[in-house]
């Protein structure tokens, strides 16, 4: 344990949102580039992105990462459900969700995000599993 933090610094570290602690939009931009490339390069899941416009999809990935990082977003459970319904019919299952979670974690590690923040973001992303898989 290092020397005493000031009260203000302690307060900030406890009360700044995860999104701010991760680095806000700058962090998301850096993450999207890495994250989406991992997803597209993964043969376990990239078939779900076939025929998709890469640029348009990247905007959606950015929105997803913003959400996963606890940032401002308009997602509802229904949105996630409808957006993935067709993919669920095409066979989307837990293994694919797990693969995406893997890439989220690996991306944050590449960006040197501290383990506890990775866990917080992972928990937020994990909370969408039932909606994404239409359960």
């Amino acid at each position, binding site marked *: 344990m290092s020397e005493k933090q000031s009260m203000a610094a302690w307060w900030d570290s406890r009360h700044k949102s995860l999104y701010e602690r991760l680095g806000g939009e700058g962090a998301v931009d850096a993450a999207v580039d890495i994250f*989406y490339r991992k997803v*597209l390069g993964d043969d376990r899941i990239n078939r779900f992105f076939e025929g998709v416009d*890469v*640029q348009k999809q990247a905007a959606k990935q950015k*929105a997803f990462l913003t959400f996963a990082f606890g940032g401002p*977003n*308009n997602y509802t459970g229904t949105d996630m459900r409808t957006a993935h319904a067709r993919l669920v019919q095409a066979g989307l299952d837990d293994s694919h969700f797990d693969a995406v979670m893997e890439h989220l974690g690996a991306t944050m590690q590449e960006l040197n995000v501290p383990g506890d923040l990775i866990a917080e973001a992972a928990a937020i992303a994990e909370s969408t599993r039932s909606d994404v898989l239409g359960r």
Partner: protein
Amino acid sequence: MITIRYGRRHFEPGPEESVLDCLERGGVAIPSGCRAGSCQTCLMKATAGLPPADAQRGLKDCLKLGNHFLACICHPTENLEVALPEETQGVTPATVKQLELLNDDIMQVALECHQPIEYRPGQFINLFRDPGLGRSYSIASVPGADSHLHLHVRRLPNGRVSGWIHDELRTGQTVEVRGPAGDCFYVPGRPERPLLLIGTGSGLAPLYGIIRDALLRGHTGPIRLFHGSRNRGGLYLTGELQELTRQHSNFDYVPCISGDEIPPGHVAGRAEAVALKEVPSLKGWRIFLCGHPEMVRSATRKAYLAGASLQDIYADAFNVNQAA
């Protein structure tokens, strides 16, 4: 008090009000989505005044240069005149100054616009045969270097405008031109960065403009062009491009043939495949992709997977108008 002008009307945003909220409050319907600066649906352009830099977050360089901004996060610091991007294109009559076949299928059309339009090589204009019948063509000329605006028009089977351009249009005739539009152009500022340009067929038009624009602006980094066609007859400007390679040591031109007969000096394969084989890592490169929509789609994905940032991939897919 800051004012926003849109069309003929003036609006005064409240202290915390974004341009989007302000215009909507005044009854103007502006396309919007996330209202948080992510989705870019509310993209607008400032035709006078400068939008604040933080309202340009996430936009490609070329859009920033053109004073585009996101209305939902724009809190202007000075008076602005704004418009939706598609509203900023003027219509002007243009005289056909020259018609020249560059190969069996591709006609170079040289136009003199009655009202000069400010364009960047690689953008496109809409050319109208009749008020209701127009097509988009990319600009191959460079302002200052070419005396007229050049288009490369490929004859399409049953093409209602391309057929007319090849068979009926004559020099001296007047056509209507609207534009320019498009974000596929050279952005100065990093003269040492490597550029990769991949085109098929008349996709060479914008690339030819972009390359010469870059060289004229003193680009020093590598500029690599891969132009592909099924056969040698589909290529063109080969002499001019080879001359450019002699004049500029940083420019490289590879003609690619995807069909069976590969003449000497040409490389076998599709332009995108050849390019990605020659330059396997694209991290830090700026990429321009023009021509066949399938090539553009596939090359975008492959370039991204090869390490190029999505912000650096400029794609212009030449979609064929299917209306009979």
